[in-house]
């Protein structure tokens, strides 16, 4: 399990604080670079199949980033569900399709940056700009909920056991959302099968 491995590595390195910080940062930025680079490849790739496999890399890199955000359970879940479920689903979806469909699907129309490129770029950049602008304009040290959390010691540390806490909270505090999501999941599955069912008048 890569997440587990990452968690152990982190924990080991806590002993050597100073060294560890530098290493931690290097790893973080490598992951960041991988995530962003692969994501860019996913987005810009001309070939769908490469795009999908590169998305696989992205998901892993992002899972690594979760670990750095002290969410090792989430990172695990990400790998299990996304990489194991979603991505496999994607691959299966068009590996199981007919040859024609595969050709059509994998055929990415030329003019990658054509047509709506400019507004898209602009809008994306605008979003990005807006978000960064916001991040840089917020004084995170003095935000109420952060300062109050720091004051009350409600800040996670690397050594905290999160999985237990998550389990308790799921079964107590977030029980209702959990149940609702399970119902939603079931509806989605039923809906998916309903849609995927072959219609008599299908093309």
């Amino acid at each position: 399990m890569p997440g587990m491995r990452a968690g152990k590595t982190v924990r080991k390195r806590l002993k050597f604080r100073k060294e560890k910080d530098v290493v931690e940062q290097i790893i973080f930025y490598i992951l960041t670079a991988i995530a962003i680079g692969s994501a860019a490849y996913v987005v810009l790739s001309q070939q769908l199949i490469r795009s999908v496999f590169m998305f696989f890399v992205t998901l892993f890199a992002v899972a690594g980033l979760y670990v750095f955000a002290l969410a090792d359970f989430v990172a695990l879940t990400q790998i299990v569900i996304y990489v194991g479920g979603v991505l496999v689903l994607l691959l299966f979806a068009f590996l199981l399709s007919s040859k024609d469909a595969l050709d059509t699907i994998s055929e990415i129309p030329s003019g990658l940056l054509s047509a709506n490129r400019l507004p898209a770029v602009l809008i994306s950049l605008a979003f990005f700009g807006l978000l960064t602008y916001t991040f840089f304009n917020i004084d995170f040290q003095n935000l109420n909920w952060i300062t109050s959390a720091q004051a009350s010691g409600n800040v996670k540390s690397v050594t905290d056991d999160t999985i237990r806490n998550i389990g308790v909270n799921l079964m107590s505090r977030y029980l209702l959302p959990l149940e609702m999501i399970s119902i939603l999941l079931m509806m989605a599955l039923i809906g998916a099968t309903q849609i995927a069912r072959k219609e008599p008048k299908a093309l």
Partner: protein
Amino acid sequence: MIPLQHFLLIGAVLFSLGLFAVITRKNAIQILMGIELMINASILNMVAFGKYDKIDNTGQIFGLFIIILAAASVAVALVIIMNLYKRTQTIDPNQTKSLRG
């Protein structure tokens, strides 16, 4: 410790890339991946903020929820895409004119 802003910035980049994919891609599957990228970016933010909620662990729990829902939505979306392909022989969302005003 990695500062919060770094996570947020990475999230912003991923989100923007996902957005870009959603807007420009002619392939529904790529769009779907774009959406997933955006979802991942938001999860990253959730998780990063969740650092300051040790007791309730809201950030992580909602990150989990999102992952689950995203998986469900991907399943449904793929089914829709395959169905769409069956109807129109294309998965370019722009070629579907039924929404046209």
